């Protein structure tokens, strides 16, 4: 089982998705005794959306919460020597670095920021290349707007070696954000597959922040989690061989148990025998977990094989427009009135737009699982939801408009209208030769920062 050597590194997870909560990160930074705080904020679609935003309005290609997070956390970089690693650079890591320097200046803090770029591979991706998911040419999916390679831990090493205390990236594989500090601090070789595998497991467990401390887990009576309202974010104490224990700051809500850790260990893993990251091919079959203290779980036993010669790139394309509308029916015969409304809508929309791709859900009955698995179901209220995809905005808008018209032209007692229309960005993947993708580091340092008074 895992053993903890005297020299360990403590890495915390301060965000697990773009819109994650900020307060738990502040608790970690102020009370966690961390060496590194990693903020993972970039989903597949987020970076394509950021790319579009940047095209429309230059200077907006990084994470919209960058300033809020940095204002809350930068003071701890200077105060306690904490180093921050984050992918909040999104489509513009250098721009994010400049904003971070400006915040440091305003707060009168000295920081050295490194922006890691090179993930933007739109120039390398040819429209004739094949999409992994569909087997069709990329161009067949729609107009390409972004292509970002998943960089590995290696891309962050020069930034750490040059003493940056804030490292800001664009697309980097999530666990690699955590693996990079381990490789840097412990001097692991980039072909030390078993250590890289164990470090990748640590990253994988931490990358969704609260999902390993009781978030996305609690189920009253079956899997109780104390004080979920004040859910604490996790940290790992990792030794020089990559054996680790996962824990959280005492006094915070949530729980770190064998169960929470196991659920996160397999989360989104499509092959536990060979999980490919840019750094290593990971085998989870030997992983063991054990409770070694209150809210502390030891993890070890992963093994690794050589990394692949290719890097995966996420390619974003314009995928048309989504139109939606919702309306509630309640009380006697609610389900039948909702069904009548659904039939009316279908007729009206299909007469207006014959080839419209349409989905109608009865929320409260069968919207989530297309079945209520044998429960006899006569709900007190039903929320009708209509969604459709269209190539043109005006057609997508028609969907919400017809739902709205049900208020006066549909069954009795429909209320609580919501309608929306949104542009959709599609994502497919392709593989690029690793050697073609070159990461770069831009240092933005103290000359921007205010002198200490």
């Amino acid at each position, binding site marked *: 089982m895992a053993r903890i050597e005297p020299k360990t590194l403590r890495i915390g997870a301060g965000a697990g998705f773009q819109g994650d909560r900020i307060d738990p990160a502040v608790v970690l930074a102020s009370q966690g005794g961390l060496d590194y705080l990693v903020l993972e904020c970039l989903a597949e*679609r987020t970076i394509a959306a950021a790319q579009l935003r940047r095209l429309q309005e230059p200077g907006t290609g990084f994470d919209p919460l960058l300033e809020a997070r940095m204002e809350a956390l930068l003071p701890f970089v200077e105060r306690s020597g904490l180093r921050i690693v984050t992918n909040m650079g999104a489509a513009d890591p250098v721009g994010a670095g400049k904003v971070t320097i400006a915040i440091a200046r305003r707060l009168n803090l000295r920081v050295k920021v490194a922006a890691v770029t090179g993930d933007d591979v739109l120039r390398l991706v040819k429209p004739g290349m094949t999409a992994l*998911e569909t087997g069709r040419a990329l161009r067949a999916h729609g107009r390409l707007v972004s292509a970002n390679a998943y960089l590995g831990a290696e891309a962050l090493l020069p930034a750490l070696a040059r003493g940056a205390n804030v490292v800001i990236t664009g697309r980097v594989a999530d666990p690699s954000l955590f693996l990079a500090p381990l490789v840097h601090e412990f001097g692991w070789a980039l072909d030390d597959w078993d250590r890289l595998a164990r470090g990748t497991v640590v990253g994988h467990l931490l990358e969704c922040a609260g999902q390993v401390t009781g978030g*996305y*887990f609690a*189920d009253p009576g*079956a*899997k109780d989690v104390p004080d979920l309202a004040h859910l604490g974010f996790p940290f790992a104490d990792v030794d020089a061989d990559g054996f680790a224990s996962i824990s959280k700051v005492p006094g915070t809500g949530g729980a770190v148990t064998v*169960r929470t850790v*196991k*659920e*996160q*260990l*397999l*989360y*989104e*893993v*499509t*092959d*536990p*025998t060979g999980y490919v990251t840019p750094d290593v091919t990971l085998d*989870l*079959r*030997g*992983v*063991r*977990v054990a409770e070694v203290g209150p809210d502390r779980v030891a993890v070890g*036993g992963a093994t690794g094989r050589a990394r692949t010669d290719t890097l995966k790139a996420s390619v974003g394309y314009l*995928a048309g427009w*989504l139109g939606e509308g919702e309306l509630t029916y309640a009380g006697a015969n609610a389900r039948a009135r909702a069904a009548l409304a659904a039939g009316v809508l279908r007729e009206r929309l299909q007469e207006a737009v014959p080839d419209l*791709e*349409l*989905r109608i*859900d009865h*929320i409260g009955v069968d*919207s*989530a*699982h*297309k*079945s209520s*698995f*044998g429960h006899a179901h006569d709900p007190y209220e039903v929320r009708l*939801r209509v*969604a*459709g*995809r269209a190539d043109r905005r005006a057609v997508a808008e028609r969907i919400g408009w017809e739902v709205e018209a049900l208020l006066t032209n549909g069954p009795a007692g429909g209320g609580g209208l919501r309608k929306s229309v949104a542009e*959709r*960005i*599609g*994502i497919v*993947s392709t593989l690029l030769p690793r050697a073609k993708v070159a990461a770069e580091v831009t240092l933005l340092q103290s000359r921007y920062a205010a002198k200490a008074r």
Partner: protein
Amino acid sequence: MPRKLAELAHCRAGDKGDTLTLSLFAYRAEDYPRLVAQVTPDRVRAHLSGIVKGEVRRYELPELHALQFVCEQALAGGVTASLALDAHGKTLSYALLELELD
């Protein structure tokens, strides 16, 4: 004897494009063989036939008392193409737990 899978196991759903992962864990180690015997890929495929259109692969992870199900074509084309309310399939762990055991 417990009848619903939910009484013996907990589950977490994850997504990668149009692929759904369902990680199933026995609450008690002694129930794991029963999960291995009864929660087969074919049964999962049949149980989720309204949702999963492609292949279901199962990995056994005895150290963790876990089964990992990887379900293809399970998310109505993935987040982009899907018109579903829960395009990521986050709620589908509880669909699996509705499975009735023998």
